């Protein structure tokens, strides 16, 4: 097997991860339509699973990351526990953020998740700071900032890429390019689409891949991580995919051509990859069915868990504003 070949276990993992994400997202979307989730906002990453799985599986223990507002899939690929995710999205006390964060602010220090972020581009410099620590401590870990194509026009991205390149920080700037920022198609937001050049011009090793091809993403991520883990500095990774649903689950995307949607749906990364693996005899139909059933069961459990979890109480409002207690004489200003 060549250096860049992917072993069959990993291939099955890539597929399984995508399936788990899809099942979770479909279910959480359904729950949202039924009014069971808290909050008005729910952004699904259906259509982007190959990016989450491909980069997520190329990451290692000790790596850290931040995501944008469309981050469920990425976190699942990094180990996120569906129970606590679902409970958080339901706004419950057993959720990752005890019902304070909701869908857009899930975090889990344990798995290196430094937080999803509802400010477009807001998470990028934070991930760069994670890379600062890794460099300061001379680890061989990496830090990944996941963000959408919309964030390509937030200035803080370029400030962060420059700093990372200046200090050779092990940071990947990973663009989940789903072609739209809300109703704005990428060519109405970015004058030039030569994104690889943008990264290179700041001194980053840069690469663009088909984000519907999970193996291309996985191999690309591995190559780029190798670069960073060996001390050569940051990378810029653009993965092209599509947002199958609307901006929020309820957005019917009237601003998109139905043709365009169909073209991308036809490239759905999951069935294609399943067929590839089965035709290549790397997995059997039964293997796939087993993984699918397990994913469905995991998601169903998560829904039950979330339903049964408690709603936070008024007093919970006041916890976790600060770490340090202030002694009795100091009222909080």
């Amino acid at each position, binding site marked *: 097997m060549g250096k860049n070949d992917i072993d069959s276990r990993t291939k099955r993992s890539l597929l399984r991860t995508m399936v788990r994400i899809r099942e979770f997202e479909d279910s959480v979307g359904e729950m949202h339509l039924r009014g069971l989730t*808290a*909050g008005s906002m729910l952004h699904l990453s259906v259509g982007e699973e190959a990016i989450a799985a491909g980069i997520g599986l190329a990451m290692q223990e000790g790596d850290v990351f931040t995501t944008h507002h469309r981050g469920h899939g990425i976190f699942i690929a990094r180990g996120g526990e569906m129970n606590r995710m679902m409970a958080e999205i339901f706004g419950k006390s057993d959720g990752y953020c005890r019902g304070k964060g909701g869908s*857009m602010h899930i975090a889990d220090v344990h798995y290196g998740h430094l937080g999803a972020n*509802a400010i477009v581009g807001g998470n990028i410099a934070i991930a760069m700071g994670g890379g600062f620590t890794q460099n300061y401590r001379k680890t061989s870990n990496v830090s990944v900032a996941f963000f959408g194509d*919309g964030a390509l026009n*937030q200035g803080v991205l370029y400030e962060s890429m420059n700093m990372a390149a200046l200090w050779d920080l092990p940071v990947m700037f990973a663009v989940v390019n789903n072609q739209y920022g809300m109703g704005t198609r990428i060519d109405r937001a970015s004058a030039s689409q030569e994104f690889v050049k943008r990264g290179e011009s700041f001194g980053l090793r840069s690469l663009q891949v088909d984000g519907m091809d999970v193996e291309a993403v996985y191999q690309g991520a591995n190559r780029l991580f190798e670069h960073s883990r060996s001390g050569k500095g940051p990378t810029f990774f653009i993965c092209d995919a599509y947002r199958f649903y609307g901006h929020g689950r309820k957005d019917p995307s009237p601003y998109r051509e139905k043709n365009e949607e169909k073209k991308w749906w036809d490239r759905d990364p999951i069935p294609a990859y399943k067929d590839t693996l089965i035709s290549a005899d790397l997995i059997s139909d039964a293997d796939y069915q087993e993984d699918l059933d397990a994913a469905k069961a995991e998601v169903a459990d998560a829904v039950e868990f979330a339903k049964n979890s408690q709603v936070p109480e008024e007093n919970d409002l006041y916890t976790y504003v600060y770490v340090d207690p202030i002694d009795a004489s100091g009222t909080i200003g």
Partner: protein
Amino acid sequence: MSVMMYREALRLALYEEMKRDDRVFLAGEDVGSYGGAYAVSRGLIQEFGSERLVGTPISEAAIIGMGIGAAMTGLRPVVELMYIDFVGLAMDQIANQAAKFRYMSGGQLKIPMVMRMQGGTGRSAGAQHSQSLEAWLVHIPGLRVVMPASARDARGLLKTAIRSDDPVVFIEHKGLYAKKEEVPEEEELVPFGKARIARSGSDVTLITYSRMVYTALEAAEEASAGGIDVEVIDLRTLNPLDYHTIEKSVRKTGTVVVAYEAHRNVGMGSEISARIGEELMDVLKHPVVRIGGKDVPIPATVLEKYSIPQKQDLLEGIEQAAGR
């Protein structure tokens, strides 16, 4: 009079002003064919085209900066930040550039620009999409700050804002867009610096603005059932502040409740309470009661409602102020 939603009233103001003056344009994220995140500008692009309904990239600092430059060179931009929560990305352009250039240039430059943005709770959208950050803006001289509560004021104040030669921060409330109210058919400009007596009363003065006006009116109705007659003042503009109307009412009632949705600490209500305490202590029968948002980040989910004043809080405040 015709009945329309707050968002429609805003759209009407934009429409009227853009028709009247071709120097006026609207720029912001998804304001064009998408029609704005809260559908305020829906349909306007058909009328005015993409030259004047300018959908921008997600670049808040550059959006405001572009507006400043366009205003300095003779246009009258209306620029939009989708949420006031994003104002932190553009505070340098707003507070160091837009607010100060007239002064710094010794009166040479002027910046007739309206910065529309939208804030407040009500959609459990979490700590980064629910804030009321008007205090930051009122603190900075050189800006005007407008926060309409009613559809009628939304239209009349936006028109005044667009005709103002100064940079105006125009803050809408996400919880009001669908609220229907009467709006005059004929053109109406609502002046800056004039508060509105939303309900007149004789026992307690309740001072507030934006969506909290409705909570205040409900609380006032309930209080009146209990025999406390509450006067509700809707400030409408926070800068200029109509202290004259406040003073007149306080001289009449001698009791004050100030209510606001923003974090309580160093908020607009702090200024109002301070000023009344400093200038009207002799007429106060009871200390000012101040009710603000809690000093915690605003939680997504069910906790959200505990973080901002509810009718019950206002009622208790009214009773406390009235000495009950």
